[in-house]
C-alpha cells in the first residue's frame, strides 16, 4: 500500500506559462451606502495563472470578484477581461464563470442537467450536450452520479458539480468564491489538491477568493493580500510570506514575532537596532537612518533553539508548549517580553516548561517593517 500523496503542482517559483493579461483591474472603487468596500484597487492577472485574493472577511475580496463576474458595477475605475472593457456588460455576456461559495446548484435539476444548463441555453444539439457534459463529469469524477439531485450529494461532490458547470462554457477565467470554506478540514486539504490538479490540466486562469492563508500560499502562483478595500501586496507565496511589507500582512500571513525598535547605528548593510529584547543586528537592503523607529518581524520557525549555547543572542525560559503533532509551538519568556518559536515535532519533544534555552537566528532572518 502506498500513501495517498499530493500530485505535482507548478510550484511557486515557476512563472506563469503564458504571457498575456487575463484580467486587468484599474483603480476600482465601490461603496455600499456609506461603507467604502473598495478603494482604488488595481491588479493584473496573467493568463493561465492561479491567482488568489486573500484577506479577512469584509476586506472587499468578494466584492472585487463580483465586479469581475458582473454582479456588481464599480463606482469608478475600469475592468478588462482579455481584450474587452467589461463595464456595463451583463454577467451572461462575460467570458468568465463563477463557482459560488454555497455552490448555487439548481435544486430542481439533476447533476447532469445542472452541468448541461449553459449548453441548453445555447441550444446545442442533444448529442453534443450529452458528450460535453459527460466529458466534464468525468473531469470531476462524477459520471456515476449524473442523475442525482444536488440534495443527495455531499459537500465535496456539490463543489465538483459547481466546478464542472462553471467550466463547461470554457471560460477565459474561472472565479472561485471561497469554494472550500463550507467543507471539513481534511476534505478541504484533499479538494485543494484536486483543484490544483484541475488547474494544471485545463490551463485556464483561476481566480480564488479566500480568507485562509494556508490555502492561498499552497495553491497559488500569485497572491494579492487585501485589507479594508485595498490591495496591500501582490506577489508569489514566498514573497508574501518572507517579505510582507506591512504590519497587516505580516500578522495575517502565518505567525510572526513583532518587536518595536529604534535604529542605533548602521554597519554597512547591517542595521543595529535597539529593542526591549536587547540589540538586534539586521541585514537590510536599504537600512533606515539611525534614530528611526520601526518594527522588526521574525518568523517563529527562523528562531534556532539550543541548550547551553553561549553564543546565542538571547536567553529565554520556556513558558508554554503547544503541541500540534507535526510541530510544537514554543512560547519563550525573555527579559524584554514573549517570543514564539516553532520546532519540528522531533525537536520539540526535548523541551519542557521552565527550561532555559538559547535563541539565535541569521542576520537576514528578521526584516524591517516601517513604523510601529
Amino acid at each position, binding site marked *: 500500500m502506498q500513501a495517498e500523496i499530493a500530485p505535482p503542482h507548478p510550484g511557486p517559483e515557476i512563472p506563469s506559462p503564458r504571457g498575456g493579461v487575463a484580467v486587468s483591474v484599474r483603480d476600482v472603487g465601490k461603496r455600499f451606502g456609506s461603507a467604502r468596500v473598495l478603494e482604488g484597487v488595481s491588479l493584473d492577472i496573467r493568463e493561465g495563472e492561479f491567482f488568489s485574493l486573500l484577506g479577512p472577511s469584509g476586506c472587499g475580496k468578494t466584492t472585487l470578484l463580483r465586479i469581475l*463576474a*458582473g*454582479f456588481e458595477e464599480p463606482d469608478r475605475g475600469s475592468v478588462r477581461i482579455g481584450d474587452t472593457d467589461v463595464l456595463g456588460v*451583463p*454577467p*451572461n455576456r462575460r467570458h468568465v*464563470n*463563477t463557482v*459560488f461559495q*454555497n455552490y*448555487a*446548484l*439548481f*435544486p*430542481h*435539476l439533476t447533476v447532469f*442537467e445542472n452541468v*448541461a*444548463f*449553459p449548453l*441548453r*441555453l*445555447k*441550444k446545442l444539439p442533444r448529442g453534443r450536450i450529452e458528450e460535453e457534459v459527460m466529458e466534464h463529469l468525468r473531469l470531476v469524477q462524477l459520471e456515476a452520479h449524473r442523475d442525482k439531485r444536488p440534495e443527495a450529494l455531499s459537500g465535496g461532490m456539490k463543489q465538483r458539480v459547481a466546478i464542472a*458547470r*462553471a467550466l463547461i*462554457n470554457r471560460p477565459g477565467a474561472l472565479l472561485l468564491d471561497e469554494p472550500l470554506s463550507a467543507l471539513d478540514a481534511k476534505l478541504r486539504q484533499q479538494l485543494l489538491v484536486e483543484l490544483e490538479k484541475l488547474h494544471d490540466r485545463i490551463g485556464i486562469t483561476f481566480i480564488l477568493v479566500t480568507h485562509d492563508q494556508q490555502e492561498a500560499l499552497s495553491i497559488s502562483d500569485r497572491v494579492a493580500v487585501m485589507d479594508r478595500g485595498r490591495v496591500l501586496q501582490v506577489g508569489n507565496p514566498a514573497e508574501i510570506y518572507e517579505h510582507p511589507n506591512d504590519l497587516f500582512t505580516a500578522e495575517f500571513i502565518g505567525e510572526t514575532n513583532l518587536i518595536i525598535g529604534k535604529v542605533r547605528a548602521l554597519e554597512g548593510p547591517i542595521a543595529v537596532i535597539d529593542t526591549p529584547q536587547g540589540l538586534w543586528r539586521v541585514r537590510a537592503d536599504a537600512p533606515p537612518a539611525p534614530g528611526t523607529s520601526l518594527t522588526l518581524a521574525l518568523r517563529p520557525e527562523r528562531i534556532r533553539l539550543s541548550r547551553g549555547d553561549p553564543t546565542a543572542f538571547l536567553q529565554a525560559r520556556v513558558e508554554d508548549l503547544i503541541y500540534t503533532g507535526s510541530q510544537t509551538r514554543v512560547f519563550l519568556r525573555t527579559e524584554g517580553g514573549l517570543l514564539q518559536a516553532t520546532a519540528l515535532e522531533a525537536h520539540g519533544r526535548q523541551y519542557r516548561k521552565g527550561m532555559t534555552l538559547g535563541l539565535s537566528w541569521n542576520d537576514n532572518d528578521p526584516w524591517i517593517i516601517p513604523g510601529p
Partner: protein
Amino acid sequence: MKRLSTPAYLGPFSVWILLFFILPLLIIAGTSFLEKGVYGGVTGRLSLTAWRDLWNPAFLRVALSTLVLACATTVLTFGLALPTAYAIARSRYKNLLLFLVIVPFWTNFLIRIYAWIAILGNNGYLNQALLYFGWIAEPVQFLYTGTSVAAVMTYTFLPYAILPLYASIERFDFSLIEAAQDLGAGALRAHRLVLLPNIRAGITASLLFTLIPALGQYAVPQLIGGRNSFMLGNLIARELTVSRNWPLAASLSVLLTLLTTLGIVLFLRFSNGPKTLPVK
C-alpha cells in the same frame, strides 16, 4: 427533540378529513338521491329527480360559464400576484408592504362590494364623472357583466394569492439567479428557468387558493354580476334558500365538486409536468 413518528398524527388527521370533507360530501351525495321535502329538507324516499333535473341546458351553460369565469379570474389574479409578491419579497420594507396588502380586508367584504357598486354603477361616481367631463354620451355598463365579476373576484382573492407566493419567493435563494446569469441566461430567462421551478409550491398554493373559491363563488356574481353572470354557486344557493329544492342543490354541488376536482387534477398534472430541464 426527535421528530415524532407519523402514526400519532394520522389519527387526528383522518378524523379531520372524515368529519370535514368525506362526511359532508357523503351527506351531499346522499341527499341528491332523495326526494325533496315540501319546505326544504328531504323525505326518506329515494328519487333520481335531482339528477334528471340536472340535464337542463341552462344549468350546463352556467357550469361552463362558471369554469370560464373561474379560470379567467385565476389567470388574472396570478398575473397580478406574482410581480407583487416578487416586489414585496425583494423589498427592504417587506413587513410594511405585506401589511398594506392585507389592510383593505379590514372593511367588511359586503361593504367593499357596495362601495364598488356605488363607483361603477350606471348612476355611479365614475359614470357621473365621465358624463360631466363629456367624455361619454351615456352611462357605460360596467356592472352586471362577466368582466366585472372576474375583476371583483380578482380583487377579493388577490391577498390570498399573494401570500403563498411571497412566502416561497422570500425563501428562494437568489444566488441561483446569479448562477443562471453567470452561466449565460439573461435576467428574464434566469427568472423563468430558475425562479419559477423553485417556487412551484407557492405557485400551486396561490393558484388553488384562487381557483377553488372562484369556482364556488356566489356572493360576487350575485351582487355584481346579476342574472346574466350567475355561477353554479348561485344556482345552489337559490335551490337551497329560495326554491328549497335540497336534492337539486345537492346534485349541483356534486357537479361543482367534480368540476373543482377536475380543475385541480388538470392543474396539478400541468404543474408537475415535464421533469426535464424546461429550456426549449
